[in-house]
């Protein structure tokens, strides 16, 4: 017995195939690429060095909060729901941060930012995203983010690890974009120069 295939069903199948081809050619699946799986974060402080994999970091207690930022020319991004690990807890793995320390956060692309210990503990200025006037905030947390709005970061968005300044409830405010370091691969506790 031979099954008859109607022209209509062939048309449907072909259209589905074409749709699949177009979809595949325009979108990249969000799976973890090899370079992300091989990504390491180096922590340096108080004479100790620790290297953590992305899985090690994801195994730590996570922190979820809202955060957004603005660029040099006032383009606002977010707020997003951000998930990651508090940076202060990462510092604790290499002896902890004291008040006179500074924190150097460096990235694969050669970018480097220095933070004061008070910033690591959440002392940042927050701004109204419409007027860019400073607005008060409650609790802030500086985290090393690995998920945004429930998905891994995009490559342009700093995959796999990016600094984020977040707050527990969606208050709609934003912080300065230069603090949101992308592609973080090293965090180093230092005494400030001259100290």
């Amino acid at each position: 017995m031979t099954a008859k295939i109607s022209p209509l069903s062939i048309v449907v199948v072909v259209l589905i195939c074409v749709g699949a081809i177009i979809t595949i050619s325009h979108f990249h699946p969000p799976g973890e690429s090899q370079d992300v799986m091989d990504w390491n974060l180096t922590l340096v402080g108080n004479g100790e060095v620790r290297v953590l994999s992305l899985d090690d970091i994801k195994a730590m207690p996570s922190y979820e909060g809202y955060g957004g930022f603005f660029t040099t020319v006032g383009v606002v991004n977010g707020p997003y729901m951000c998930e990651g690990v508090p940076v202060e807890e990462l510092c604790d793995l290499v002896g902890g941060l004291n008040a006179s320390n500074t924190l150097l956060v460096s990235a694969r692309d050669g970018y480097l930012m220095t933070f004061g210990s008070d910033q690591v503990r959440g002392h940042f200025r927050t701004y109204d995203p419409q007027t860019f006037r400073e607005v008060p905030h409650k609790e802030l947390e500086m985290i090393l983010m690995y998920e945004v709005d429930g998905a891994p970061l995009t490559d342009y968005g700093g995959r796999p690890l990016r600094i984020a300044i977040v707050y527990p409830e969606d208050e709609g405010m934003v912080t300065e974009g230069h603090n949101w370091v992308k592609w973080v691969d090293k965090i180093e506790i230092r005494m400030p120069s001259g100290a």
Partner: protein
Amino acid sequence: MNNTRGSAPLMIPILVLVVISAAVLTAGCLFHQDERELKVIHAGSLVAPFGEMVKAFECQHPDVDILLEGHGSIQAIRHITELHEEYDVVAVADDSLIPALMYPDHADWYIRFARNQMVIAYTNQSRYACEINQSNWYEILTRPEVRFGFSNPLFDACGYRTLMVIALAESYYNDRTIFDNLIARNFDPQMRSTEDDRGAVSVVVPEVFRPHSDKVAVRGGSVQLIPMLDYADLDYVFEYKSVAQQNGLRYLELPPKIDLSTPEYGSIYQNVSVFLGFQRFRSVGIERVGRPIFYGITVPKNAPHPALGAEFVEFVLSEEGKKILQRANQPTTSPEVVGPGTPQVYATTVMNIGEMER
């Protein structure tokens, strides 16, 4: 046999669909190529004039869609040199950055097309607004009740240029307390400014750069400082003249020997160097030397649409482009080609510029 005969008519619609599918995919690719998308990355202070420039260029070229992206000048260049992204035009607020960071792999020429100068911006609400002038500004800014601000020298060229202006003011006004009164004493750790035997001044910015009182405000850039003036949170802000004008602010022009505007005073400006507290970019050193402020524009070597990029550069340099810049309060300059390379794609313009310069 029957099956073979029956599959022949079926093959026709399949083949038609395959051809149509191929045509759709090919057309999609061709459509993208024909879109004539032009990507321009530029310094933050060019937001207003380049916004107008784009409207006028697109009006003349209806088939072109320009994507503008503003950043700090160093960051704009890094998108090309270190993040390996493709742009057709790059325009920065410090022309010396192009040879320093892009030559020879990413560019080998640029054109100076605009200039700027440092001013002190204020509003009618600013304390002593009716009193401030070129000879007393540093004394007014020192008064305890007066608050002033500038952008962070670690992130913004306008920030380290502010420190240069204040350091240059000490020599100009023959008053060695100006830097200490306005800057050094308001920061913890205190900032240092030292002068060597030959009169060269070095300003060292600490790696965590924050004032210890409300008298001085340091923010990432104009985006935050202008609202502080508008809401009277600050009385005065060091800014580019173009930015002050674009935001409808009053401003005090400073003497040309200290405002970084005039090439003739380049040897005076270069007496001051600012050393940043940390190397924010692996490829960019920490020393910034005083220079007259010139804007540079180029077409990167990896531009996806170099001819179209060159057309845009030509438009910026044209009489119409010049008028747009001037209407947006961006001071212009006679275009000058700099670098070993030749922007061949618009040889006519370059020839004309060459004639002008001679």
